[in-house]
């Protein structure tokens, strides 16, 4: 099937290396472009110190990188600072003002989408939408596990998107809502930490067979198991499997996709997320935006292995290239 889906990388993928000052912002861009991923998604609060008050110098450097590396800025990831004050909630007006700064920043980068953190009140998105429209920026609320399409949360955000119109407000599905098998890196870590192997197997079996994971913590308690078993039971409730064909109901609203992955193993596949099935649906629906690689395996392996986000992104991009070329 012909399609116009494009490949990109969220620099979130390289957070471990950036955090430890092994890669700079420019390195992260150069590495991604080197894999043919020309869409660059950025998290200012990770890699652009001083945000939202970035200097003209910074933006000039950014422009120079765009010219040098030939990438397209895709999305800026915003965070609603809901708990800035220790003793009171953040007034809606302040959150809207913050979002306007995110919009200005996004427009200045030359990007066209803002990933709206799922916890952002829908009202804030609606109030900032006219400003976003003026600036040519689209607001895409992230649909992120454990939130589901069938939730009240989704209904309230989607209502705003329908009211404002998909040319300005939409969604950014995170492919972590399509976790069919519990990530291997997650339960292998649990085993390394010393969790009871029978119980870990039980958690994996329950999750992978699509059964209810919400009773697993009680089960651990009944079995007199400890915090490690409680933890894996809890973590299993944070992953979800949605039917990928649900995406077809929202195609005009999908402005960006977080191509979440936990591990690309030596076979070149993502163990927990059925990418072929999902990409096939996106092609069928006529998605023409970016698949933005978002590696999130580092936190599960750093206890025992050297984290190599660059290699993981390379493998992920290789897999995307292959699946996008498939004639299905």
């Amino acid at each position, binding site marked *: 099937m012909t399609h116009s889906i494009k490949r990109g990388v969220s620099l979130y993928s390289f957070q471990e290396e950036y*955090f430890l000052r092994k890669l700079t912002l420019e390195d992260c861009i150069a590495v991604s472009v080197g894999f043919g991923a020309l869409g660059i998604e950025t998290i200012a609060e990770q890699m652009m110190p001083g945000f939202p008050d970035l200097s003209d110098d910074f933006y000039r450097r950014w422009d120079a990188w765009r010219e040098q590396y030939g990438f397209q800025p895709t999305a800026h990831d915003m965070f609603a600072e809901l708990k800035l004050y220790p003793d009171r909630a953040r007034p809606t007006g302040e959150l809207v003002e913050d979002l306007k700064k995110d919009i200005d920043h996004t427009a200045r980068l030359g990007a066209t989408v803002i990933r709206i953190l799922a916890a952002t009140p829908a009202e804030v998105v609606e109030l900032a939408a006219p400003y976003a429209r003026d600036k040519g920026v689209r607001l895409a609320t992230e649909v992120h596990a454990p939130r589901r399409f069938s939730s009240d949360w989704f209904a309230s955000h989607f209502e705003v998107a329908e009211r404002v119109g998909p040319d300005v407000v939409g969604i950014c599905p995170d492919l972590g809502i399509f976790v069919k098998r519990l990530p291997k890196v997650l339960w292998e870590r649990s085993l390394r930490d010393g969790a009871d192997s029978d119980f870990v197997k039980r958690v994996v079996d329950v999750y992978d067979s699509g059964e209810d994971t919400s009773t697993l913590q009680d089960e651990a308690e009944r079995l007199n198991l400890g915090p490690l078993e409680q933890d894996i039971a809890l973590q299993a409730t944070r992953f979800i499997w949605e039917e990928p064909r649900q995406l077809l109901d929202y195609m005009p609203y999908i402005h960006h996709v977080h191509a979440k992955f936990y591990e690309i193993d030596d076979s070149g596949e993502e163990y927990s997320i059925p990418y072929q099935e999902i990409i096939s649906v996106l092609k069928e629906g006529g998605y023409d935006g970016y698949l933005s690689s978002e590696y999130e395996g*580092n936190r599960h392996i750093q206890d025992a292995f050297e984290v190599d986000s660059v290699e993981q992104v390379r493998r992920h991009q290789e897999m995307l290239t292959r699946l996008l070329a498939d004639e299905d």
Partner: protein
Amino acid sequence: MFDRYIIVENSLRNVRQGSDVVGFAFDARCGYYRRLILSMVEELDVEVDGTPVPRQDVSLTVGGRTYSLDEMRSEYKVAWEFGEPATVTVAKPGGLPAGPHDIRLAEQLRISYLPVPHTPVTTQTLTVSA
């Protein structure tokens, strides 16, 4: 997610004021996946060789400015940038004796979308040189 990296290796030293040793310090990173504005750093619990340090003796220096834990609560602008070492100073006349010490740091961070604070914690053995 970054617990194991929050204490910067080889960063423990005694702090002098004139000829007096008035405390000790080490460098720390904020154990979250983005920068946090200081008002959201609720506590920095420090233990040295198994003994908790009194809260009022702890301060954090970010970008050249030093804050007590109480002062941080109302700092709504300055951020502890992602991966950026800041200095944790503990007031303690005489400082620490030369040699290895077990430093435990727990950072209580108020996160916009989490119901309870995210609390990265680690213990590291660091050495004060003679």
